[in-house]
């Protein structure tokens, strides 16, 4: 069963500013992203203005502010993948999905994220759909991969 927002927040002591990041991480693990309600409630709980909570959360790439799609696509932008043309891969995914990095499609099916390194440098360039790696991909593969996931819905 999913823990409620209040449950997660109440795991941490009220007024403890130092628990901001673990708290935000817990919420993101549970819900996949941080919504406004979460940020406002966290701020109230640890006595930090919401502008600060939002400012700190946006400082870190790990936090998302829109809900993930049914299929969450991560494109690796680490050094090795970059050398193997991952920028073009990212642009192609954006083109096929008609989405920008960091966005979720309106129908909620796909979301796209660029990440630093997924530790599969030997198989660059890689992308990852809901935890499943696609290795050594080329531009023409992308439409195929995405069509496959579209067809499963």
């Amino acid at each position: 069963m999913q823990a409620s927002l209040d449950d997660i927040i109440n795991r941490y002591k009220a007024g403890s500013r130092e628990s901001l990041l673990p708290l935000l991480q817990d919420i993101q693990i549970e819900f996949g992203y941080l919504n406004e309600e979460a940020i406002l409630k966290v701020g109230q709980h640890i006595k930090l203005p919401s502008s600060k909570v939002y400012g700190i959360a946006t400082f870190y790439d790990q936090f998302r502010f829109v809900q993930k799609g049914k299929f969450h696509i991560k494109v690796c932008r680490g050094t090795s993948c970059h050398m193997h043309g991952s920028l073009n891969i990212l642009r192609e995914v954006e083109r096929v999905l008609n989405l920008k990095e960091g966005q979720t499609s309106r129908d909620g099916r796909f979301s796209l994220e660029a990440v630093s390194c997924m530790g599969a440098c030997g198989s660059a360039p890689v992308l990852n759909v809901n935890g499943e790696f696609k290795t050594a991909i080329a531009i023409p593969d992308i439409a195929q991969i995405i069509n496959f996931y579209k067809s499963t819905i």
Partner: protein
Amino acid sequence: MLFDIEVNGKTIKAKREDTILMALERNGLKVPTLCHIKDLLPSGACRMCVVEVEGRQGLIPACSHPVEEWMKVRTHSPRVIKARKTNTELLLSNHPDDCLYCERNGNCELQKLAEDLNVRERRFYGKKNKYKTDPSSASLLRDPAKCILCGRCIRICEEIQKITALEFIGRGNKTQVGPAFNKGMNLSSCINCGQCVMVCPTGALAEKQYPAKLQDALHNPAVKTVIQCSPTLSVTLAEEFGLRAGKDIEGIMYAALRKLGFDFVFDTSFGADLLITEQATEFYNRLKEGTILPMFSSCCPAWIKYIEQTHPDLLGNVSACKSPQQMLGALVSNHFAPLAGMSADDIYSVSAMPCIAKKFESQREQMTHKGITDVDLVLTTRELARLIRLNGIDIEQVDPEHSDQPYQSRSTAGKMLAVSGGLTEALIRTLHFLITGKETSLLKIQELRSGKGRKEYFVKIGEYKLGFAVVNGIGNVEPLISEIKKGRTDIHYIEVMACDGGCVGGGGQPIHPENNNIKARAKSIYELDEKESNKFAHQNASLQSVYNLFLLNPGSEVSLTHLYTTYEEREVMR
């Protein structure tokens, strides 16, 4: 303890625990900075204050580095100048380059620095970030494109005002300053005090303005224009025209306003006298009836928004009196207009204020009737000065005039609302008369005239032993409120002004990065109070005649209808 350091080949005295910048400033040496705010912890964001220290490889930011005994500092070596210039050029590479069209043209710290450093060509080209301006607030216009991320607004809002409406959002070259969720300021906890505008080095933060609307009204013969100017204006306006800070130019100001084309010129000091009389009556009634105490002052709209959003449970403590601006505005609509044979709809009512929160106040739903505002437009001191320059009026050539009837006279008590503690002093004078029937001889309360953020004063008036607390700078109010909530009962009246020093330090005042002139303006107000004979709000002759003919007496039905207001709990992103 003092010790010697060497700066540019000369020996100067430095104090232990000073930063290099403080040591330099103490000795009259200047290094530029775009992010430093005096008396706040350094942030070291802008890197303009870098200096060369012998024996150190890199340049050192003077604002955040402690001064040490062995130091040999060079503040303007070629290397330092080159670094500052490059920094400035890099800032400009992501700047809109629209100085000619900018609010702060001619009074911009970035512009001045570029000028001083002789930046004459563009060396860095690149894609500029795209930003949206935020026009959502009634008081503030935020233009992130002009922001140089110095962080001054964030720090003044968080560390001094303790509101924390703004923060850096994102990181790296995508960083910008904004309220929570980067939404509109109108949804944020911003109280519109405008202290962020006062410290912004560029035009990224400014007051909301409608110059065309005003011009239309001034030149439309079918519309009668009325202006009221705040008690603070007469001791501030002179600065904008190169005269001595704090010089009182009341009569000249009235005359200049007529020259601008205003049909009727009133002084909000009259409204202030009215407020004092009404509020003293309300306070006396609360004392007699033993209803909710302490009573909070209500003339600062930033404070009102603060208490509405932060302590809605205390709204009953807030005086129901409108602010002087809104009292006079309501009188103009409901008393002056019929008297002059006009309909309130034909009047365009303007006010000139040292404040940007007044813009917000005039738009409050409680200040409108069927959607029509009592005060249609609020100008800041800066806007008014610009308007005077625009119309080619030479302040030094203008002969003083009086303001208009029926609100012509004012007391110095009304004038005192310009300074923190002044409202309380003025109120005590009228309250003394209400309670004892005699005038007080207590005309100078030193306890309320200090520069402290929080002041208290205890006095016995008639049979009442009363405690008065005065707060200036909204960041100082929270400790007092928690004392009250914990059951402190020796305080009966609390005056709160959101800005440091009261209205003389308001967010609509002239922007001088180096000296804010707050003390000079306050001094001038106190001198007026010393010099002039009418020191009592309730003795104001015009006010007495308005009472005789229209309002009848303080707290009457007519007063309650026009001069009192209500407050509402506010949901904001806190």
